Every structure is written in C-alpha cells, then in structure tokens.
C-alpha cells in the first residue's frame, strides 16, 4: 500500500487511508472546520491519485474507525457478503470507477458488486467521480421498496408531502397536506416533523394524518418524524404507524448524541414489523446528511462524505422503504455554497444507490448559506435526472416549522413534467379519481386545495 503521490514533481505524503480519503474529498466547509481537508488543489489531486491505486482490500483492512471501537463499523463489516468481497478485493479504486461506468456493467451487476463493498470503499470510488460520472452511475441503479405502495419503479418520481406547522396545529397540517395532494405530491409518504417530541403529541399528529388518509382512501404511507424512542413508545400503545423514522449519523458517538444505538434501531425495526399498521416488508424511513458528525464534534477525524456513506451502511441493515439526505440543512459550517450543496447531493445519491438503497434527496438550504433558490433548483434537477426515488414537497418551498428551504409542491409537479415521470402507479390512479391528474398531466383543477372540502 503506497500512501505517497507526486503531482508535477511535487511530492505529497499521507499518513493513513483515512487521511487519503479526507484529502481526496471535494472542498467542503465541514472538512475545513474539522481541519482534515486538503490545503491546496494539488494536494487534493495527489490524494485522489493515491486513492485510485489503493485496492479495495487496502481500504477494507483499514476501517476509518476501528471495528472494536465503533458499532457502525461493526454493522458495515458484519453485513458484507464475503464471497463478493473476495472476488473484487484486488481491484483498485480507479478500476472500480471504470467498472461502474462501463457500458457492459448493468444495474444488476452493480447490485451484486454492492454486496461486497464497505461504505468506505463506496465513498472512495465516488471521490474519483465528476458530476456527470455520478449521474451515469446513478442512472444505472434503481431500487424499489414496498410499504403500502411501491416506490422507485422506473419511470416514476415520488414525493414526501411535508406539511409541517409551527405549533403542530392539526388543521394547519391538514391544510398543507391538501395543498400538496392537489399538486400530486404525497405518494412517497405524508411525513410530518412534529414540534413537540412526546408520545401524546406524536400520537395526536399521526392520528390526524392517518384519519385523513383513510377518509380519502389515499394509497400512501404515514410517518411522524419524532425521535425513534418516542415512536417505539407510541407503537407499543397501538398508534397507527406505517413508517418508523430516525436521523442517522456515521459514527457511534454521533448516534449516541442523537440518543440511540444499533440496539434501539433493531428494536424499532422489529416492533414496526410486528405491530405497525403497514403492509411492509419495508417499514423504516431514515434521514442522513453530510456534516452532522462535525457539527456534533463526533467526526473522529473522518471526512463528512465518508461518514455519510457509513450512514448508508447502517441503514441497509433495516431494508428501509425510504432514505434521503438533507444536504444543506445543518448550515454553512458543513456546506457553505450552492456548489458544495450540489456536489454533496450527487455524491450522496450515488453512495446510497451503491448500497442498494431506495434513495431520495432533500437538497436544501438555510438562510445563512451562500446559496439561493437557483442553486437548490439546479441540484434538484440534477438529482432527478440521476434517478432519485423521491424528493420533499413543501408549500412554496418554505418550511415554516424547521426554517429552511426545500423542494416545493410546484417543483414536484415541474420535475415530473420536464422529465416525463409519473407518480407511483396506485397514487396516480387515485389522482385520476380525484380529478387532479389525467394521462400523467395535471388537470386544470390541480392546485385547488378546496377540492378536499369537508
């Protein structure tokens, strides 16, 4: 294993695989804050050069956080198919990149290869990819999942209707749900972030959503994104839950700061299968996002892209129905510009797909980032083109509870139109029945929330 590289006569020495991975990452503020990124452009290229010649085995043998020390590492390594890994372990990262991009390599081939790749290997190969490389790779991979309906079918694009309200007012939440549905948004899930994280509040909100779904017979899923322990407690009391949610991070320390362990997730998964109200078999929903570990000071010297990949390594243990990043939610100390946001978005989409996950994307921004609506829309269009399963849907793109900006109901309708994509089939039939959609196009009536007049 050689950790030294030369670019036009200048030599660069790296002290570990972890160091190579960090310095080979595209420039992002979170890695600068952690003090682990490349200092010069040439050093970054030298790291990519060294990385391209490492074998998959070199990376496998040098986990960024030791197996004994971190349960996320243990989940990743224990989940690897050793037969597949052995078949590819002598390949270099550079060769893996070309294999992924090769015309002869199909999505099925990649599904097989992915079973032998650790999350660090997956992060490594995407560090050698430009934006169009990432799109070519992403388009090959498409993963379906089934809860009450099927998500991720080729030719479809789904949305999470996100009807958040600053005081969890049930009528306010319903008003935004109606607006979203009238634009065809909500086939992935109707998913509310509650203000108050306790069993009573959680149960109240999920019952409101659940009753609305039943009354209008909407083929979709419900979810209230409280802390996983709140959801477990509510499930035990018989709340009508379809999807159990949790935000994930890429280190054990950061997950402990989030207030859960692998055991907690194991329990939640088992309980959701045993006592949840959905058909399944996919009953979990996760959110991730580059930089949460650095903002919690739990990054352990690992770059934010590699840690993001480790979130997907953890997620695949639970065969989720949905998973999405929330790039840009944390703020400028992790992703500062629209360019950093776009790059992270595309990396995340490909890394999750290389974990065979049904990935969606929430490319978003806060008001203290150097990013605006144009950046968000560019990132959104690229990730739709690359075949994300779903995006968020928010009234006017403005989340009035979480105070950040994400994909709007209008953006949802637009992306389907410009890319010729359809809603999930069951949901499209329902939209037709409601007179919102016809032959895959919005009708004149679409956008009028008063059609849900009760």
């Amino acid at each position, binding site marked *: 294993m050689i950790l030294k590289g030369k670019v036009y006569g200048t030599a660069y020495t790296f002290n570990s695989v972890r160091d190579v991975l960090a310095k080979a990452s595209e420039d992002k*503020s979170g890695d*600068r*804050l952690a003090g682990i990124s490349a200092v010069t452009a040439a050093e970054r290229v030298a790291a990519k050069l060294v990385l391209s010649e490492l074998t998959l085995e070199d990376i496998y043998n040098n986990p960024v956080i030791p197996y004994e020390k971190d349960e996320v590492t243990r989940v990743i390594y224990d989940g690897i198919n050793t037969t597949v890994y052995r078949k590819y372990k002598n390949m270099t990262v550079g060769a893996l990149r070309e294999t992924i991009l090769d015309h002869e390599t199909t999505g099925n081939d990649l599904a097989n290869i992915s079973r032998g790749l650790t999350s660090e290997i997956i992060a490594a190969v995407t560090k050698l990819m430009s934006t169009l490389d990432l799109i070519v790779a992403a388009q090959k991979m498409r993963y379906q999942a089934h809860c009450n309906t099927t998500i991720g079918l080729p030719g479809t694009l789904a949305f999470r209707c996100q*009807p*958040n*309200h*600053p005081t969890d*007012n049930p*009528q*306010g*939440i*319903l*008003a*935004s749900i*109606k*607006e979203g549905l009238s*634009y065809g948004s909500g086939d992935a899930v109707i998913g509310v972030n509650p203000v108050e994280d306790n069993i009573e509040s959680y149960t109240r909100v999920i019952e409101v959503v659940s009753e609305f779904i039943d009354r209008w017979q909407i083929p979709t899923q419900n979810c209230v994104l409280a802390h996983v322990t709140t959801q477990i407690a509510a499930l035990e009391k018989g709340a009508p839950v379809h999807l159990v949610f949790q935000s994930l991070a890429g280190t054990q320390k950061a997950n402990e700061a989030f207030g859960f362990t692998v055991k907690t997730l194991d329990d939640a998964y088992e309980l959701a299968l045993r006592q949840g109200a959905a058909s399944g078999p996919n009953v979990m929903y996760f959110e991730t996002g580059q930089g949460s570990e650095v903002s919690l000071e739990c990054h352990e010297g690992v770059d934010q892209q590699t840690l993001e990949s480790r979130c997907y390594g953890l997620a695949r243990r639970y065969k989720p129905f949905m998973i999405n990043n929330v790039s840009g939610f944390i*703020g*400028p*100390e992790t992703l*500062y510009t629209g360019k950093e946001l776009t790059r992270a978005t595309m990396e995340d989409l490909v890394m999750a797909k290389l974990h065979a996950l049904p990935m969606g994307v929430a490319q978003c921004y*806060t*008001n*203290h*980032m*150097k990013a*605006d*609506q144009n950046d968000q829309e560019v990132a959104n269009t690229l990730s739709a083109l690359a075949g994300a399963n779903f995006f968020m849907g*928010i*009234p*006017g*793109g*403005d989340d*009035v509870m979480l*105070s950040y*900006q994400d994909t*709007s109901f*209008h953006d949802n*309708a*637009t992306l389907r*139109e410009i890319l010729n994509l359809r809603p999930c089939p069951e949901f499209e039939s329902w939209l037709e029945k409601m007179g919102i959609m016809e032959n895959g196009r*919005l009708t004149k*009536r*679409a*956008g*009028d*929330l*008063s*059609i849900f*007049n009760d």
Partner: protein
Amino acid sequence: MATEENLESMIVQNVLKELAKNGFLQNVKTASVPQVSETPTHRSIVNDADEYIELPPISEILIHEPIHKETVAALKAMTPARIGVGRAGPRYRTTTLLHYLADHSQAQDAVFLDVSDEFLQRMGIFEVQTQVSDREEHLTRPDLGCRLSREAREKISVNCKKNVQVQVFVADGLSSKAIESNVAELLPALIQGLQGEGITDIGTPFFVKYGRVRVEDEIGILLNAEVVVELVGERPGLGTANSLSAYIIYKPTEKTVEADRTVVSNIHMGGTPPVEAGAFLAGLIKDILKAKTSGIKLTTG
C-alpha cells in the same frame, strides 16, 4: 421631440427606476432620481414621486377560480405556510415568486451585511472583533466566533469596568438587521429596567463583530462579571430576518455548557417588542442574581 441627449438620460432614468422597483437599488429613492424634463410628454412616463410597486399581502388567494373560495381562505388562515398560491403551468405565479425572493433577500442581507458604523456611532458603543477575519469565515468557522482577538481583549480590558454585577454586550451573530432594528430600543430599556430593579453596578456595553453565543464566556471570565448578557442576532427565517436573542449566563467558566444559559429569543416587533423585552430581561436577571445560577438549574431550582 426629445433630443438625443434627452433620450439617453430618459433611458438611464427608467432603468434606474426599474432597478429600484426590483429592489436592486434599495437606497435610491424615486425622488432622488434626477428629473429629465418638465414637458408633459415626459411626465406621462415618469411615475409620481410617492407611487411605488409593492408586494400584495401574502394572505391573497392566487388560485384561478377555486371551487370553494371560502374554504381556501379558511385553510390559509390555519397556517403560515405558503398555500392557496395557485400556479402558472407547473410553476409559481409571478407574485408568489417575487414574494419568496423578497423574503429571502431580507434574510440574506441580514446575514451577509455588516452592522453599520453609523449605527454603532449613534449608539455610542465601541466595537471589537473575534478571531474571525471576514464574513465567510464567520459563517464557516463558528469556533473562531467564540474567541476574542488579542486586540479585542485589550480594548475591552481598557474600556470596561471589572467585577461588575451585570455586563451587557451586543454581537451580530447571524443577523445584522436584528441588531439595527432592536438594540436602539432594547439596550436603554434593559439598562433602565435593571436600575429600576435596584441593580446599578452595570458594565460598559460594547459591540462584538463576528460574534457567536459562546463568546460571552470569555468576556465574562475576562471582566469577572457576575452575570453576562449577550444580545445576539438570530439565524433569519424566511419570514423574520430581524429577530434577536438574549443569552444570559451566571459566572461563566471554560467548562460552561449550553444548558447553563438562560435564553430569551424572538425579540423583535413581530414577537416580543424590544422595549417590553428590556423590562422582562431585567426581571429575569434579578432572579438569576438572586438564585446565583442560570440555565436549566434556574428553572429546575
């Protein structure tokens, strides 16, 4: 007929007006745009001095012929979310787009513009800086915004009394607008409120540029103040760009954690108005001095 010279200046004037209308030239008042001509022909093109294009209220229903208009109005009343906005094809109506851009512009300017020197002069407070050197570093390196520069430590040591009961200071945080629109009323109200509570041993207030919340710990330790009050600009939302918070701490140390701080947020005209907040904070500070603790320990006794 306009001469060529007249025509040129007329074009310039109209361009300026359009820019001003779109908010690109916020400080250009229509009245200050030079008049080109006094002839009636030109007057029909030039707007009256006090006529402005403004955004319609956000409560307006923009759906084209909704089935139940009253229902839309009732639903809109239930949430501040941008619903009932209608569409142009799959996209926003023009008004919706402009509203969004206007809201984001307020937030961006609050984050990226400095508190003006003129404002600080008017307030009569001196300025120091953290270890942050520019706006980008302020946003991407929150750790540096928690530490004073060497010059700042010296300036504060020279200009401020030590061992005071209450030290108040202002920091830009993430919104210069929050400072400029609240501090002129909040600071005097707070000082008067403290005096009204019988607390007269109050330090000299000052302004910390590129400051974060945790900088108050270093300031408290440096001045050996019993209670430190930081008035800091909050991260702007899309609807509110000028909200300010007060972070109060009793005898901070290097080991201070977030739970040790008492926080009063949402101070602005649309939330807790600054004058009211000043009186409220004074009462709270009195309680903190009496309890000799702040944060969670104060509320849990």
